[in-house]
């Protein structure tokens, strides 16, 4: 049954990613929200697909679970064909594009914005596909609130420097951007994971927290003409 006017129930917020010298880095927080309830706080919103690709998801997480199963089947079929080829990031991207657009055309959406990134034979790729099947490829990607809060910082830090940006700098940029998102996105969590995809493969970090500053609040009293005491 087609239910085009349903809204997402259990959701993930922004995914951010950038291209750097040796490949791709992507970051997500570990939160699955249930509306305004921070319900599940240990969720992994990024999944490796083969040795070359990482896929991150924001939006309805049950639809992401379904997609993970589909991607697993895809990789198994490709393995079984034993044709000497493995699927790379561009192939996974094209596959997800087709799946998302096909569901959109039946008005039965998979309510996600997916970020696909990876490197194969030195070719770095980073792109996103949304619930309508719209695709976009760039050296910086950010979904959800990240498009408003993270993209300005990512573009300034990365554009033009994709080939010289080293891993430590890329990590610093993502940490800074995830911190800004924790400050200003009311559906985020200060528990994040960062994935690095380079020639050696896909490495998803253990969850960790970012240091935040709240001392500025000590000097604020009231919201207007409250006399300082």
């Amino acid at each position, binding site marked *: 049954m087609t239910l085009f006017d349903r809204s997402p129930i259990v959701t993930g917020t922004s995914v951010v990613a950038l291209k750097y010298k040796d490949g791709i880095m992507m970051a997500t927080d570990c939160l699955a929200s249930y509306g305004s309830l921070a319900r599940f706080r240990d969720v992994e919103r990024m999944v490796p697909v083969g040795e070359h690709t990482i896929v991150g998801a924001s939006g309805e997480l049950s639809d992401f679970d379904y997609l993970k199963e589909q991607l697993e089947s895809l990789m198994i079929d490709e393995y079984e064909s034993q044709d000497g080829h493995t699927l790379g990031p561009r192939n996974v991207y094209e596959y997800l594009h087709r799946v998302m657009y096909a569901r959109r055309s039946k008005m039965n959406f998979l309510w996600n914005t997916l970020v696909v990134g990876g490197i194969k034979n030195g070719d770095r790729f980073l792109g996103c596909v949304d619930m309508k099947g719209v695709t976009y490829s760039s050296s910086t990607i950010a979904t959800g609130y990240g498009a408003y809060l993270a993209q*300005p910082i990512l573009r*300034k830090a990365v554009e033009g420097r994709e080939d010289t940006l080293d891993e430590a700098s890329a990590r610093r940029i993502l940490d800074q951007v995830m911190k800004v998102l924790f400050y200003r996105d009311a559906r985020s969590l200060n528990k994040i994971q960062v994935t690095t995809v380079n020639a050696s493969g896909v490495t998803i970090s253990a969850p960790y927290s970012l240091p935040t500053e709240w001392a500025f609040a000590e000097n604020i009293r009231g919201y207007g003409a409250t006399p300082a005491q």
Partner: protein
Amino acid sequence: MATTSIDSFPATARPGGFSFELHTRNQVLSSRGAAVPRATKTGTTIVGVVYKHGVVLGADTRATEGPIVADKNCEKIHYIAPNMYCCGAGTAADTEFTTNLISSQLELHRLATGRQARVVTAMTLLKQMLFKYQGQVGAALILGGCDVEGPQLFSIHPHGSTDKLPYVTMGSGSLAAMSIMEAKWTPDMERQDAIDLVDNAIRAGIFNDLGSGSNVDVTVITPEGVDVLRNYATPNERGVREGVYDYARGTTKVLTESIRSLVEVVDGDAMEVE
């Protein structure tokens, strides 16, 4: 018999607040196809920052009418008092007239009290007016200034709420600008660091928000005085045309020429009018 005395005429019916008596008439008109005029909005990225010695205000310079850029270099940082300026986002006419009105009220207040105006006074006048109009006056303001209490910064929303903070952003580009603020603001910055922060925050709005664009205006307010740095940065200057695209005489070959005089000059100069 319906009363049509001057007291029931909308403009003089009640003191204070809007009269909504024309609402039914407007609805009927638009249902009959009369186009509702679009308000010029400012799209906008505006910011304010408190630094060690004062306040720095910043704004972009694009004014929009829907998807059209109505003004490529408008001024969004308005004078309120010698020690106070106010950035405005939202409906352009509302921000302009509201800041002018409060500036005028403050000047009279200054003359009556014989003292420098306080930032909280301007803030209170603004919020009380905006609340009275229940958000219908679409003015989202960032008010900054220096007075006896030191440098102060407020953000004022169209419904009349205020926030007192060390850094604020408003307008459609506020998230882009706020991301820069959250990444780079520190307490007690030096003057040039504060200006650079404001410049970068406005640029983030100019380049990432479609409602903002063109140039960066900066105003620095300290107890000593004010520096209005209009067009502090112009990162969107129009390109210079590179070639000469005029066709030289003779490019199109003239085959025949025929000249007919339409005017026969009997007396005087051919160019004379009378």
